[in-house]
Structures are given as structure tokens and as C-alpha cells.
């Protein structure tokens, strides 16, 4: 209970959002501008921000009567000016030969349908306060190829929360069959957490539940790189400045020809973004509070430094290599030995195929090595005992080489087979002759076969060190923290 409260301290709840962030930062005038789609679009356009083109505005019944329907393009979006939460938006996909249109739901849409819908908009059906509203036609954003597999009919958009000129958190929203081509989460769209630093997607939620793949097309949702990421962040920050909203959710879509285009700015940005990112928002907002942010580039840098959780993946993308920290959790396979594996009480432990433990990544060591006691537990007890038995009688001088020593225990080596070898290690402590065992290990999700030299490490913190010979497929970043701590 206590940890629950402690861990939720950084969470942004509805109460805190309204009272601590919207009330003091979003003044009435700015909120009114944001809620008026046409006015805010105009303000953004004047400031040089790309916005969807407006094909026509219908303010009243008279304008509806005289509207030239023939001037409308093949595809467009019909929107209420004061709509909220995606309500009342009609997306037209294409045109039939008889000049009627097709909606994203695949239904036939006639002029009469559009007229009825506009009348509903006039009635204030979709507006914030239920007061009468006006309707407008807008350019339909053309779907980017990258997003094609992920979106059902509609256009995905990117929600960026900007506070004090810093893009604090971001989310990619995908339309689904259920959301009828709209990207709004409460209508059944998918929300994907986005790493602010790189623009790569992390987790995905639908109806507040974590999901792995798109429900319609079954594509994996994490790891998608959003193009134009820096531009998107920069546009989002500019939108905050233009809209004069201190705490704002900027919705940006990417047009296949025009690039990032701002759909709208929201004064009351929702809280689901926290679920999509599996990260609490208030914690981030508090870090930003009171910072002097000079310009967009500065804001982006702050966001990347503070909230970019997976920057190393960027390096991984470039080099194709995984980045390791100094301490990593590894898995070591347990040998399927005829003796079975005895645990401390002497019972058999055969049901377990591998063990997990923390190992030190040591670029100063050539080979990996493992503690003798641990190796015994892993099922190598018999061989270790036999090895110690024969080596005890050997004389290991300073000039000893592997060849000479191996020759002396030839019989045993042949008996043990390919999984076992020996190594002569020369160090400041002198020369030692050690047993080398081929073990199956898993490091950062990659399976390797590593030859481990067996030695007594009982006085050291880590029973295993991973040396250079096993690290060919990795990069080591000393500043990286261990991600998961096992046994917790």
C-alpha cells in the first residue's frame, strides 16, 4: 500500500492536471483559441506552421444551400469547428463514378448525407458546450508508406505534450477498425509510447490495455521509428509558443508529400499517454518546472537528455551491436550431467535448465571466467574434481606452456570430450593452469557459447566475468545501468 502511494507520486491524475497545470498555465483566451479549430489553424498558418488546407467553410444554412459540392476534391475531411475528442469528424476516402463519396468505413456518402451531418454540426451536437457550431472541409492527409501496415484506413497522428517549451512526452496514435479510422484512444485507437529522444515506439495500449501487435494487421508495434522526429518536436514546441498554452497537447500527422502537418492543439490533453509510455507524467513536468528554456533546440536537447530512455538503441541501430553495461544479467545453461545437479541440501535440481545471475563485463580480461563453486553447481563437479586431482601432481613452472601440460593429462582430456579444454594464464600472481569449459550463455538476449576458465572467485563480488573473447557482438557503455534486477 505504501509503495503504491510512493510509486504513484509522479503520476499525473485528473485533479492535478486541471488544478496544477491547466488552470495556471492555460489562460481562458488561449483555451478558446485552441478549441476553435479554424482560428487556431489560421494562427499557426500565419506563423509558418504547416497545417491541412481548408477547402471550404459552411457557417449557416444559407451557405449550406449555395455550397458548390462539385468543388470538393475526391477525398477530404469534414469537421465541426468546436468538436472535441474526434467527435463529428467525417473522413471521406474517395469518390464514386456517380459523384457520391466513400467514407473510411467503406459506406457510400451522398451530398444529402453530408448535408445532414453539417446540420447536426450546426445544432451543436459535437461541440464542447452543445452550442451551435460551424463546419469546414479540410485536406485529407495522405498516408505515409511507413505507417501503412500499422493503420486501419485513417491517418496515424503523433501527440506531443509540451510544457515550458520542452516536449515532455509523446505518443503515436493509430486508427483501428474499431475506431473507424480515427486515431482517438477512447474510440478504440492504439496509443504507442514514443521515446522522446529517438522517436522510436516503445509500448502499445488499446483501451488502456497493453498489446503487442496491431489487432487488424498483426504487425509488431514496438520499435517503429517515426520519421521527421526532430522536425516534429520542433513544430510541437513552436505550436506551444503560438497557442500561448503553457501546457499543451499538439497533434501532428505526417503527410506523404508535405511532411509533418499540425492537426490541432489541445488545451486539455488526456492522461492515457502515461499508459502508452508506461511512464508517469508529473515526474517529468516537475523536472521541467522553472527551467529557463532559450529556444526550440534547447527544449529538444533538454527533453532528449532527461526523458530519452533508450538512447543506446540508436547506437545499436548504427553499429548493429547491442550495448552492454558494466554489470549485466546473464543466463548460463546447466549441464545435463549424469550426476544431476545437487543443490545445497543435496536434492536434485534437474528441472531447471539454466540459472540467472549478474556478471561483470570486463573488457580488460581476455577470457571469461567462472567461480569454481558455481561451476560445480552447474553440473561440472566430476570433471573439476578429476582435473584438480591430476593437476595437483603437476609441476607448473614459469615456463610452462599449454602444450606441455596438456600432454601430461592427455588421457583425461580425451575422456572429457570437446566441451573441455585447458588454458595457461600468466598474471602477476604467477602462472596458473586452469580448466576451460564450453558453456551456453545468454547475454542481453543473445545466445553465445563461451569458454569459461574455472577459478576460485569466492572472495570476489561477481562469480562470473565476461571477457573480450565473448564480447565481439557487443559494445560496452560503462555509464549504462543494469536494466532489470532479478530476484526482485
Amino acid at each position, binding site marked *: 500500500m505504501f509503495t503504491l502511494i510512493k*510509486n504513484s507520486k509522479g*503520476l499525473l*491524475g485528473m485533479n492535478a492536471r486541471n488544478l496544477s497545470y491547466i488552470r495556471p498555465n492555460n489562460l481562458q483566451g488561449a483555451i478558446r483559441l485552441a478549441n476553435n479549430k479554424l482560428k487556431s489553424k489560421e494562427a499557426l498558418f500565419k506563423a509558418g506552421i504547416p497545417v491541412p488546407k481548408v477547402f471550404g467553410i459552411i457557417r449557416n444554412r444559407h451557405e449550406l444551400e449555395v455550397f458548390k459540392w462539385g468543388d470538393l476534391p475526391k477525398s477530404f475531411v469534414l469537421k465541426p469547428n468546436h468538436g472535441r475528442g474526434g467527435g463529428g469528424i467525417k473522413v471521406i476516402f474517395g469518390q464514386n463514378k456517380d459523384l457520391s463519396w466513400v467514407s473510411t468505413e467503406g459506406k457510400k456518402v451522398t451530398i444529402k448525407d453530408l448535408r445532414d451531418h453539417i446540420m447536426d454540426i450546426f445544432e451543436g451536437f459535437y461541440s464542447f458546450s452543445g452550442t451551435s457550431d460551424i463546419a469546414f472541409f479540410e485536406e485529407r492527409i495522405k498516408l505515409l508508406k511507413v505507417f501503412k501496415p500499422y493503420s486501419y484506413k485513417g491517418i496515424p497522428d503523433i501527440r506531443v505534450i509540451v510544457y515550458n517549451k520542452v516536449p515532455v512526452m509523446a505518443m503515436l496514435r493509430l486508427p483501428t477498425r474499431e475506431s473507424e479510422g480515427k486515431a482517438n484512444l477512447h474510440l478504440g485507437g492504439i496509443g504507442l509510447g514514443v521515446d522522446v529522444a529517438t522517436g522510436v515506439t516503445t509500448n502499445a495500449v488499446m483501451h488502456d490495455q497493453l498489446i503487442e501487435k496491431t489487432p487488424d494487421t498483426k504487425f509488431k508495434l514496438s520499435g517503429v521509428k517515426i520519421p521527421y522526429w526532430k522536425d516534429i518536436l520542433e513544430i510541437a514546441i513552436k505550436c506551444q509558443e503560438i497557442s500561448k498554452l503553457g501546457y499543451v497537447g499538439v497533434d501532428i500527422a505526417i503527410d506523404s508529400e508535405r511532411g509533418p502537418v499540425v492537426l490541432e492543439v489541445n488545451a486539455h490533453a488526456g492522461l492515457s499517454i502515461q499508459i502508452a509510455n508506461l511512464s*508517469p507524467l508529473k515526474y517529468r513536468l516537475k523536472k521541467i518546472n522553472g527551467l529557463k528554456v532559450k529556444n526550440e533546440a534547447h527544449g529538444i536537447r533538454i527533453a532528449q537528455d532527461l526523458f530519452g530512455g533508450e538512447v543506446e538503441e540508436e547506437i545499436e541501430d548504427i553499429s548493429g551491436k547491442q550495448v552492454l553495461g558494466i554489470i549485466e544479467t546473464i543466463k548460463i545453461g546447466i549441464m545435463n550431467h549424469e550426476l544431476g545437479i545437487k543443490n545445497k541440501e543435496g536434492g536434485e535440481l534437474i528441472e531447471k535448465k539454466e540459472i540467472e545471475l549478474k556478471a561483470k563485463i570486463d573488457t580488460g580480461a581476455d577470457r571469461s571466467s567462472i567461480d569454481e563453486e558455481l561451476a560445480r553447481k552447474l553440473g561440472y563437479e566430476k570433471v573439476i574434481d578429476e582435473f584438480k586431482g591430476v593437476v595437483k601432481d603437476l609441476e607448473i613452472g614459469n615456463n610452462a606452456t599449454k602444450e606441455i601440460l596438456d600432454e601430461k593429462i592427455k588421457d583425461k582430456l580425451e575422456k572429457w570430450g570437446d566441451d573441455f579444454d585447458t588454458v595457461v594464464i600468466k598474471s602477476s600472481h604467477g602462472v596458473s593452469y586452469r580448466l576451460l569449459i564450453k558453456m551456453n550463455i545468454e547475454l542481453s538476449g543473445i545466445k553465445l557459447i563461451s569458454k569459461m576458465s574455472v577459478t576460485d572467485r569466492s572472495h570476489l563480488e561477481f562469480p562470473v566475468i565476461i571477457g573480450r573473447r565473448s564480447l565481439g557482438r557487443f559494445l560496452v557503455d560503462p555509464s549504462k545501468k543494469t*536494466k532489470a534486477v532479478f530476484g526482485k
Partner: protein
Amino acid sequence: MSNIIQLIASQGVSIETIYLILALPFIATLIAAFRQLIGIKSFGIYTPLVLTFAFWAIGIKYGLAIFIVIFLTGTAVRYILKNFRLLYMPRMAIVLTVISLAILVLLALGGYFQKTGLASTSILPILILITLIEKFISTQVEKGFRTAAFLSVETLAISIAGYYFIIWDVFRDLVLSHPEYILLLFVVNIFLGKWTGIRLSEYLRFRKVIKNVDK
């Protein structure tokens, strides 16, 4: 009973009237607390408040029965009318017409089955229940059936809680003997109005986020 109450009662105001007027701010505060602390959403403060007092006037059993009839009829009519493409006001008028007829049938049935309780209830609360349907239906259109259904259930739950509150003898005695406690509601509501903590429902909604904080 407190002196002030006695004074007012002596002027011919019925105790029932005084009680309900004094109970209203308590129920309003209860609804506010449900929203801010627990996170139970409702259609504003008006709908659950009116629903609570309608239940009180009709009785919870018949009140719920009538509510359910209204809700189901309203939803059904909305779905039927969907294909007719009518404008909002006339459409809603039709919904109300059908509901009125349904209520009439319900009252007649009640009489037929000797359920006199139903027929003897005052009509005003029933009329209010009927008109509340607009809120429920317009939310269905605006936010989709799923959200509207959730909101309706939550509104209903708050109203039922409010109903049991006002019929609770302990509460009644307290309000009538210490009407000055109403002043405490200012304190409570100022606290609620300044409360920036996490709502109970948000612990549930964001449980995965909270869990992830550990790592």
C-alpha cells in the same frame, strides 16, 4: 431537533421540505467527493442529484424500474431512428414520445397487476426521469455507446448511494438536529477543490504505469 428548524417548522414549512433542502448540499458534496476522490464520473452534478431525489420520491424499487424502462426504450428508439436521419431536436422529441407511451403502459400494467404503489407515485419525479434521458442519449451519440453506458452506470450508482444516504435515519437526525454542520461542507468542498492527489480509479487505470516505476 435544533431551534432554527423548529422556528422554520412553526411557520408552516413541513419537516420533509426542510430536510430535503438541507440534504441537497450534502448530496451535492457527496457527488463532488465521488468525482474528486474516487473518480466516479457522472453526467455533471445535476443529473445524479435529480435522480437521487426522484428515487426518494418514487421509491428505489419503482424508481429503478422506471429508470431502466426509460433507458432501454430510449436507447432502442435511438437505434431505430438512426436510419431515418432526422435532425437532433425532432429526433429527441420522438424518443421522449415513445418513452412517455412506455411509461403509460408501465403504469397501466402496474394497475393491472395490483401494484398500486406504482400508480400512486407522484407524476413530477417520473416526468423528470423521462427528461433526463436526453443527457443519456446525447452522450451515446457523442461519445459512443460504450462510454455512455459506463457513465450511465456510474451516474446510477452515485444516485443510489445518494438515495440510501437521504433515507438513512442517522443522517436525517444529524441534519435536523445540527443544521449548522452544513457550514462544514464549505471546508470539505474547498479541500476537494484544491485536492491534486490521484483518484482511486486512477490507481487502477494507471496500475501498469505505477508498477513500472519500480524498475
